[in-house]
């Protein structure tokens, strides 16, 4: 049911771990729903020098975190903020319908970490104006009609 890309990122996740004294940390999801994603950023001069993640969740949640961190590493914060869950899905060559929300989680976790960084540094980003990290993202897609 998963693509080779998903399985690769699940088995060999990139950027797992923590960053001590990270410049921004974001956590979304909730253990009740079975998924938590935590992102650590190391930002220098507006550029994401390093990024790490930890995820409690299913195969696609882990793969989504892995591929998303890969996609923002070395990018500017503005670029990272443009990352959408759709891009995450296509980077994984697709996810099953009920698993799309795992990719949303990855997008949110990154935004949440950048928000943390912005707040610590007194910055404002247009992309984060309407962003609420505690919003209930959790709509496990149903495939029934």
């Amino acid at each position, binding site marked *: 049911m998963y693509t080779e890309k998903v399985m690769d990122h699940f088995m060999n996740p990139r950027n797992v771990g923590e960053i001590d004294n990270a410049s921004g940390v974001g956590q979304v999801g909730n253990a009740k729903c079975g998924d938590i994603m935590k992102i650590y950023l190391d930002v220098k001069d507006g550029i994401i020098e390093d990024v790490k993640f930890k995820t*409690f969740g*299913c195969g696609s949640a882990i793969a989504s975190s892995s591929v998303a961190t890969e996609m923002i590493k070395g990018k500017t914060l503005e670029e990272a903020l443009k990352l959408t869950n759709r891009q995450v899905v296509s980077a994984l060559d697709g996810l099953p319908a009920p698993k799309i929300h795992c990719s949303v989680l990855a997008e949110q976790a990154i935004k949440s970490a950048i928000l943390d960084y912005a707040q610590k540094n007194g910055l404002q980003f247009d992309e984060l104006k309407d962003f609420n990290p505690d919003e209930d993202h959790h709509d*496990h897609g149903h495939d029934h009609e």
Partner: protein
Amino acid sequence: MNKRIYLDYAATTPVKEEVFQAMKPYFTEAFGNPSSVYSYGREGKQAIDTARKQVAKAIGSKTDEIFFTGGGSEADNWAIKGIAYANKNKGKHIITSNIEHHAVLHTCEYLEKEGFKVTYLEVDEYGQIRIEDLKKAITDETILITIMFANNEVGTIQHIKEIGEIAREHKIYFHTDAVQALGNVKIDVNELNIDLLSVSAHKVYGPKGVGALYVRKGIKLFSFIHGGAQERRRRAGTENVAGIVGFGKAAEMATENLEEHVSKIKKLRDKLIDGINERIKYVRLNGHPTDRLPGNVNFVFEFIEGESLLLSLDLIGVAGSSGSACTSGSLDPSHVLMALGLPHEIAHGSLRLTIGDFTTEEDIDYVLENLPKIVDRLRMMSPLYEEVLKGGQK
């Protein structure tokens, strides 16, 4: 992937070779309609009679108390709706538990919409209903008690005999979903005071899409599938002759050496349970420690999520199942694990491995060797485990 280790016997079982051989003639050769009066069809009719005897024997009923259905779910639906509608003038109250299979639960929920009242008994931390609760729940309006014999997820076996006695005393019909129990627990409908009982072939090395409902003689229940006069006018539809023959053979094989089978499976189960307890920290066994299906192993692995565990096992060739919401695409984790009182986040991390007739010691060794590494790897990725490590200890 070299290994293929199947540890999901509670989900379904392969058709045994003997069973398949018994079924085979009824597809292309002895294909006549059993309702036909003459030569063609006669073989099919006789074969169904034999199968009916075999299934009856497996649960200690009379032959003509067995009615074949299209599976366990149909049997559950029929029993519950059939009794409910046939007795709605006597009362509209049904008692069940909150760990039933969805075939029972969703049927009860449907009946609630149709004006019936349903009590969903809670279970204790091991998954058993409290007999006191049952007694208290009974009213003058109660027409049916439906409590499953053994649970498919955590393997807990209920005190069926006591439940049956109470139902009998109060003249309430007692139905039990014995889909998981057949072939794993001795069933005698008379000794256990059971009035209606559902079974399914594909859990006992028979084909999928065949089941049976036992209905104690004299009990009136409404037809569920209306139409032709098959199954003595109680269940219409051309009989799945090959499937029924397979079920008969499978039921016979599953019950003829029951004790031997059970002790063999139990040994493997206990080896797996003990091995996991010894090798992995922060785990806990779900379900009852002893009133438990011989092949059921169900553990919570804290800090990790069930699907990722299942997926990792699949990659090394081991098939299991989990109560995680992420596996099924549904909203909530397993209603059974929640009913046992497990918090959401812990219910998410459960893994069910179920042992069957083709499981070997080596299979168990292989799992015990690899599972700790998988759990470790996943925990290292988990933000929840991070906190434990930092705190030094939980």
